[in-house]
């Protein structure tokens, strides 16, 4: 085959300083390009330009958020660091579970690709986050997916919802990873920019922990897994200056196509490599592909690496060096292998039928040198690519509309007039609420996911958290929940981020797990808009403050910016995942009344205030304004402690937190879970908290939960809550025979009727 490209070597670059390079088309700003010139002392080669442009992108460099994200590392107490084996900065954080076990988890976004091609975008989102988990040395054990779509009745939602759900399902199901939960929200703000976030969790023994660094001079660098194609390079290649013929495919696909089978084989193969201690360091290939893997590995290790790029196995032989460096082809890993392990490594590759190629070795030059047929096309300090990218402290200010937004209280608005008060109207309102797109039954989605594979799933959607057993001997395991409320965060970005944490913390504690660590996926609009930047800065400040107060460290996550529908930014949407630990997952608390709980007392824990701004009910009336519910982290922590203790000591047989939709939603979900009804009377709550029945049912006050307490445990339960000074009210009993949710003095709603309304929404829209 004849040479297809003019190779832009370092030598050539030094000799031709005036060649115009398409830095702007690659997304670099003038000042950034000038910075590259300064670093190199010459113009970059085309390949170097490709590397810097992808690694200095917002996505890879966090250049707009770095100055704010530091707070997650600064607001840490010794207590918070106690169980943290690996914090922010690696592929995923690692938390100690005791007995030699550790857990790693991370949440990430795949928003834009999931709008362009929903099925593949969502599928490769799962693939990418799972590879992050593998590269820590862990076996992935579960996935979760918080999703936000446009309006449920918008024509394009058909394409996006079907594609995203089938993509997550087909990829996750094929990997043998149970999907244990998530969220599904519909709101027009996400119409042109759905949020597809994916979480993966993995477990490992301490000794299996692996990090992404290339250490040991002379160790070999290997790329294995799928071949490299043009995936994710996008559009016509702007690196055309590298090429002088037109025979290559005119377009590079902007979407990546996933091969879950290849990834499943890669998982098993990597775990055997770890078990046999055959890799010194490992890095998955995701965004920025080989550029990221080589520069990260080199700069985290002893600082030098030499790689021959023509040794990369290609799916598309027309790719230029720059394109190979930028390609985001899926299901690839890069590892560092000691020379004496090369043979054993190759035997495992043959066993699993995985393709690999040796690209080079670790050096002590402090330079990342990449050659093309022996000619040097990249010669850089890897740290300047991976870590020393631009950092912006972008200007921000409180939006001009914020004061008016906050002043627009639901109660005072036209939408807030004529609120339901009669029993009949309240009954209709509960039915309307539970049929609403955000509150309705999500099993149309979750039944397309395998929640059983692995045999360790102790809880999954629709319970408050997904729960996975880690140790079969002891029953030790973890619980995970993801939450966010974009409306709250729009009304108050600082409080909104805290409320997201509060809810996921509460969900985990409600199942009985002790919250230990947090991963966050910060979905915001353009950081170049000072009003959006304010939302982002406030969100990070709020979340980091709240993490410190609750004592749960952020161990990793991701920032997704430039999310907007048309020119309108999405609601700020900080999705927070909390991970908790169970001594024994068999103690997990179900979220609904079981048949066994018949006759048990139903308690409402916490205080109800008149907090309807930003609520689901206000949303149903088309209103968004005012101030979100009050954040009370001390109460959240106390409630969590009580729920965990009550679960451990067998004082409660069911527990469900209160969040969107308030008490009406919580009670509805509790009777729907196993089809076992309840009779409640809210008189004591109305009197104690000074609210009316409508408010008691629909307010979204925080730090609340409903529990079912066996008669024999009531004294103990009440003693415990009063000793800690936490308000509880006995609001009723579980009543199996009633087959209804009965709110005394107001209405009785047969479970069958409630179920019909709750279950039919998604099938009606999506078939």
């Amino acid at each position: 085959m004849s040479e297809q490209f003019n190779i832009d070597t370092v030598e050539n670059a030094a000799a031709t300083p005036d060649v115009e390079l398409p830095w702007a088309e690659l997304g670099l700003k003038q000042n950034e390009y000038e910075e590259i010139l300064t670093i190199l002392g010459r113009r970059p080669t085309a390949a170097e330009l490709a590397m810097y442009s992808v690694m200095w992108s917002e996505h890879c460099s966090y250049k707009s958020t770095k100055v704010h994200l530091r707070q997650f590392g600064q607001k840490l107490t010794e207590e918070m660091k106690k169980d943290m084996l690996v914090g922010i900065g690696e592929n995923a954080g690692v938390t100690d579970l005791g007995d030699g076990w550790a857990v790693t988890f991370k949440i990430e976004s795949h928003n834009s690709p999931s709008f362009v091609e929903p099925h593949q975008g969502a599928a490769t989102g799962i693939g990418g986050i799972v590879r992050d988990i593998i590269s820590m040395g862990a076996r992935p054990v579960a996935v979760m997916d918080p999703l936000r779509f446009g309006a449920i009745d918008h024509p394009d939602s058909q394409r996006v919802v079907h594609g995203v759900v089938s993509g997550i399902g087909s990829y996750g199901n094929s990997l043998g990873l149970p999907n244990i939960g998530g969220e599904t929200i519909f709101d027009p703000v996400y119409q042109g920019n759905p949020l597809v976030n994916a979480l993966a969790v993995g477990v490992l023994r301490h000794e299996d922990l692996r990090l992404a660094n290339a250490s040991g001079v002379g160790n070999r660098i290997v790329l294995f897994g799928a071949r490299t194609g043009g995936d994710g390079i996008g559009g016509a290649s702007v690196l055309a200056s590298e090429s002088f013929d037109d025979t290559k495919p005119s377009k590079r696909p902007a979407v990546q196509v996933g091969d879950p089978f290849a990834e499943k084989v890669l998982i098993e193969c990597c775990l055997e490599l770890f078990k046999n201690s055959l890799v010194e360091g490992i890095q998955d290939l995701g965004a920025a592909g080989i550029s990221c893997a080589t520069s990260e590995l080199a700069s985290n290790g002893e600082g030098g690496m030499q790689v021959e790029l023509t040794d990369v196995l290609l799916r598309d032989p027309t790719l230029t060096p720059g394109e190979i460096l930028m390609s985001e082809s899926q299901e690839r890993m890069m590892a560092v292998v000691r020379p004496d392990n090369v043979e054993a490594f190759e035997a495992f590759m043959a066993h699993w039928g995985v393709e690999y190629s040796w690209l080079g070795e670790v050096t002590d030059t402090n330079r990342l040198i990449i050659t093309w047929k022996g000619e040097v096309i990249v010669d850089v300090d890897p740290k300047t690519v991976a870590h020393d990218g631009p950092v912006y402290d972008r200007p921000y200010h409180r939006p001009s509309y914020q004061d008016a937004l906050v002043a627009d209280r639901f109660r005072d608005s036209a939408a807030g007039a004529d609120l339901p008060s009669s029993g009949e109207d309240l009954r209709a309102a509960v039915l309307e609420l539970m049929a609403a797109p955000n509150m309705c039954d999500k099993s149309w989605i979750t039944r397309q996911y395998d929640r059983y594979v692995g045999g360790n799933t102790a809880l999954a959607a629709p319970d408050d958290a997904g729960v996975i057993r880690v140790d079969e001997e002891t029953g030790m395991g973890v619980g995970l929940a993801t939450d966010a409320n974009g409306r709250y965060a729009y009304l108050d970005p600082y409080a909104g981020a805290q409320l997201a944490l509060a809810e996921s913390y509460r969900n985990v504690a409600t199942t009985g797990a002790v919250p230990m660590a947090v991963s966050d996926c910060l979905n915001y609009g353009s950081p170049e808009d000072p009003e959006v930047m304010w939302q982002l800065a406030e969100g990070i400040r709020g979340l980091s403050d709240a993490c410190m107060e609750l004592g749960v460290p952020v161990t990793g996550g991701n920032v997704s910016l430039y999310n907007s529908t048309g020119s309108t930014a999405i609601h700020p949407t900080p999705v927070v995942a909390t991970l908790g630990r169970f001594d024994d997952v068999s103690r997990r608390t179900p979220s609904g009344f079981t048949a066994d709980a018949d006759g048990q007392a139903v308690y409402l824990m916490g205080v109800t205030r008149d907090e309807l701004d930003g609520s689901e009910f206000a949303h149903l009336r088309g209103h968004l304004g005012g101030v979100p519910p009050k954040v009370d982290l001390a109460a959240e922590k106390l409630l969590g402690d009580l729920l965990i203790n009550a679960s451990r000591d067998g004082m409660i047989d069911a527990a469900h937190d209160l969040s969107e939709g308030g008490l009406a939603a919580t009670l509805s979900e509790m009777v729907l879970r196993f089809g076992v009804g309840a009779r409640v009377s809210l008189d004591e709550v109305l009197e104690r908290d000074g609210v009316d029945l409508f408010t008691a049912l629909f307010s979204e006050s925080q730090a609340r939960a409903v529990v079912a307490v066996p008669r024999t445990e009531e004294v103990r339960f009440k003693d415990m809550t009063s000793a800690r000074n936490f308000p509880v009210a006995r609001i009723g009993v579980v009543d199996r025979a009633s087959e209804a949710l009965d709110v005394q003095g107001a209405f009785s709603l047969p479970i069958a009727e409630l179920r019909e309304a709750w279950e039919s929404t998604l099938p009606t829209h999506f078939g």
Partner: protein
Amino acid sequence: MTARSDLPLIGDYSSPETPLSGARIGVVTFPGTLDDRDAARAVRLAGGQPVSLWHAEPDAAAALGALDAVVIPGGFSYGDYLRAGAIARFAPVMDEIVQAAGGRDGSSGSGAGLPVLGICNGFQILTEAHLLPGSMIKNDHLKFLCRDQVLRVENNTTAWTRDYAAGEEITVVLKNQDGQYVADEKTLDELEGEGRVVFRYVGWNPNGSRRNIAGISNAAGNVVGLMPHPEHAVEAGFGPDSAEGMRLGTDGLGVFTSVLAGLAGAEAGANAGVSK
């Protein structure tokens, strides 16, 4: 080369000592197999000794000779990209399994064949290998479906169902994309006539399977294939919801105790024969 064998997901996989702990049940792993650990756990919880069987086992005949029964678990072997099970059936280990089980469907009625259970993708592989008749196509509603599913045990005389009562209704897990069982009318009539419909869906047909068929056997009853997953209903706390409570269903355990009971019975019979 270490076999992928002892790669416990988590926890200890040593077998408890039981009267049946000598029974060695092979669990086949192809690239893309997913429920192999679950099948191994089910064998262990039933009292047997699970043995990993790699699809490309260098000496498949010897490996198989040391086993008392084989489970082909669920998953997406080779991605199921061509047809479910279509590539896996050509694996070296499959030839040996077909032989040991008594040959292609109909060629052996001796009943002496190796007990073989195909679950989900394993069932698909058994039909592609022609150990069982018919085939599986995409669910009639075209979606992957995961749910707790009620089955009726139509035949409790096979190697894998003898611990159930005839007509017993059990709840196990169903999860698949290509679960619609199809065969021509003549084959279906034969299956019905010979009592080879082993499991049938109750209440609702979750995938459009002909005559609500969830599982079938070969003529001798040693080879059984079913679409739902009994191995996911073997441990309280991690199974389907049951009348006893959330995730307490263990109805699937009977499939695995059945084969162990049969093996124990056969051994007792053989010993009795020797002593005579």
